[in-house]
């Protein structure tokens, strides 16, 4: 599948196996400000505004209707509106019902399609790979390059196929699958690779679940993660505002059906997991690879032979304020960050935005606070300076909210 998309998007070849890759969709957010600035300074314009779409998510506040008190935060949002207006780019801005997190609105609006190349100045762009698109995150200079040329010089990555087979046990969902994958291959396990997620477990997933898996490809080191498009994908896309219609839909569908990897396709590397061995999973450390089943205990660095690994674990435990041997289900939490609606249970209603997933807009946890989080990064300081993050599924976060500590959701449901 990767090869099929890659080979259809090569514009020219450069030295050292570099390919000038054509980009079908460029998604922008407030972080694109500096790229717009440099583009203007060099007297260049956006080459294909019709393939470029923007939304405000990184810096907007999620409290309904509240403008940011910080002028710098506010100007990040305002300048995106100005730049997109000048360049004729469709912008889902504040007050537009279509505004939302860039990796959610691409699919919602039917901008994300199978077989296309899609980039965004955000490392979680692999989320769009759930639709069978080749989607990856890029830096600011690359954003400027795509704006000006609609292309990128890329070297072909290797392809890693991760196959998950079987039915997921009750209480176990897509977030547990990707956390288990990262724990298995490591935070650097996918460096230099594009990942194809395959197998009956992935096939049985909804688009939301596939997006959850692809979203964290970068946490395993891979810039791109993909799932072959199928009936689930097509049913999701049909009738979306920017999706192909009429004859175009028929033509697109005919092409999309050719995209899945052939039976004899070769992969540079293969990894396999059994769904029935995956349990509700939480992170205990400061890297997404530091993940264990909720039934486990905080690991003991003293039991680790490798010096560098031991020191890294000691540092992570000190930061997280955890002692070796503590059952994970006895760890109490102060705050639950969950991207969903639980107003009746007393949660605050917030609007769409990156918010505490990245902590750019000023919404952060306090120093030392322990957060049960459905986001994707437990790095030191990610959710606020000194904040302690445990990654887990929405079901596990809801369970933690009910009990006030890390909790095996299966205990509450059964």
């Amino acid at each position, binding site marked *: 599948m990767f090869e099929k998309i890659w080979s259809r998007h090569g514009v020219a070849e450069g030295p050292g196996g570099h390919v000038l890759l054509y980009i079908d969709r460029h998604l922008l957010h407030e972080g694109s400000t500096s790229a717009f600035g440099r583009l203007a300074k060099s007297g260049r314009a956006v080459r294909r505004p019709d393939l470029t779409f923007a939304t405000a998510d990184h810096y907007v506040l999620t409290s309904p209707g509240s403008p940011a008190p910080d002028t710098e935060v506010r100007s990040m949002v305002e300048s995106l509106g100005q730049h997109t207006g000048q360049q004729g780019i469709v912008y889902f801005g504040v007050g537009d019902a279509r505004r939302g997190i860039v990796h959610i609105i691409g699919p919602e609006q039917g901008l994300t399609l199978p077989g296309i190349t899609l980039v965004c100045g955000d490392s979680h762009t692999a989320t769009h790979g759930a639709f069978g698109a080749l989607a990856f995150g890029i830096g600011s200079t690359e954003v400027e390059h795509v704006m*000006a040329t609609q292309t990128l010089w890329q070297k072909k990555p290797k392809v890693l196929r991760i196959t998950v087979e079987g039915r997921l046990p009750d209480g176990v969902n897509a977030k547990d699958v990707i956390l288990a994958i990262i724990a298995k291959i490591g935070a650097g396990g996918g460096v230099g690779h594009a990942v194809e997620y395959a197998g009956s477990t992935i096939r049985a997933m909804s688009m939301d679940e596939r997006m959850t898996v692809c979203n964290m490809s970068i946490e395993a080191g891979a810039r791109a993660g993909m799932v072959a498009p199928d009936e689930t994908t097509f049913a999701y896309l049909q009738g979306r505002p920017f999706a192909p219609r009429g004859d175009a839909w028929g033509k697109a569908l005919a092409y999309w059906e050719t995209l899945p990897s052939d039976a004899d396709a070769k992969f540079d590397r293969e990894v396999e997991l059994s769904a029935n061995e995956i349990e509700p999973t939480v992170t205990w450390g400061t890297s997404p690879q530091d993940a264990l089943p909720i039934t486990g205990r905080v690991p003991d660095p003293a039991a680790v032979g490798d010096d560098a690994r031991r020191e890294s674990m000691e540092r992570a435990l000190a930061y997280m304020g955890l002692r070796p041997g503590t059952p994970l289900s006895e760890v109490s939490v102060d705050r639950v960050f969950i991207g969903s609606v639980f107003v009746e249970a007393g949660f605050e209603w917030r609007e769409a935005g990156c918010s505490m997933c990245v902590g750019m807009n000023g919404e952060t946890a306090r120093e030392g606070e322990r957060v049960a989080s459905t986001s994707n990064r437990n790095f030191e300081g990610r959710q606020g300076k000194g904040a302690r993050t445990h990654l887990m599924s929405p079901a596990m976060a809801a369970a933690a909210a009910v009990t006030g500590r890390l909790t095996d959701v299966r205990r509450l449901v059964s």
Partner: protein
Amino acid sequence: MQAFTCLTAVAAPIDLANIDTDRIIPARFLRKPKGAPGYASFLFRDVRFDADGSEKPEFVLNRMPYRGAKILVVAENFGCGSSREMAVWVLEAYGIRSVIAPSLGDIFHQNCYKNGLLPVILPANIVAAFRRQLRERPGATITVDLDSQTVTAPNGTPHRFDVDPFRKEMLLTGRDETGLTLGFESRIREFEERHAREMSWVVPAGR
């Protein structure tokens, strides 16, 4: 972009694996324009300084003679996580021109090339030996020569490293990549015409 040719400089060792770009520059500084006053002070902010702004004496760049380092020798998967190019900008603002590692986060790795900062990938055991030598002889220098693709260890041993010929040429000349690509305009236009025929559904329907 500033060119990179050859550099001999003090190198600082960092042993921890998986250092993410959030740690290199925390999110709250990303809205500061590149080159803002004190930009270099955002580098490793929360591990380099206490809350009151005083230096943490144990952090490597707060110790002489590593303070003036222009080369970092790091561990696996350095620069993983967020795509923020500010992680490279802030290293550059501090004066770092080369990062030697067993592996780097893919996006960080690409971002280095766009800013004249040379990433050098060597086997893990060799990089670990570099770090050990730097701790044994603080202030020792490393020479990185891009043209000959050799890096000379603190103990004087030369090691050859691989670098992509395209990236090498761009770094040696400091050339603007967008300018180069605009030279392919006719090829891009040809591609767009063919693409519009073969995948006519790609251009979004709505608006």
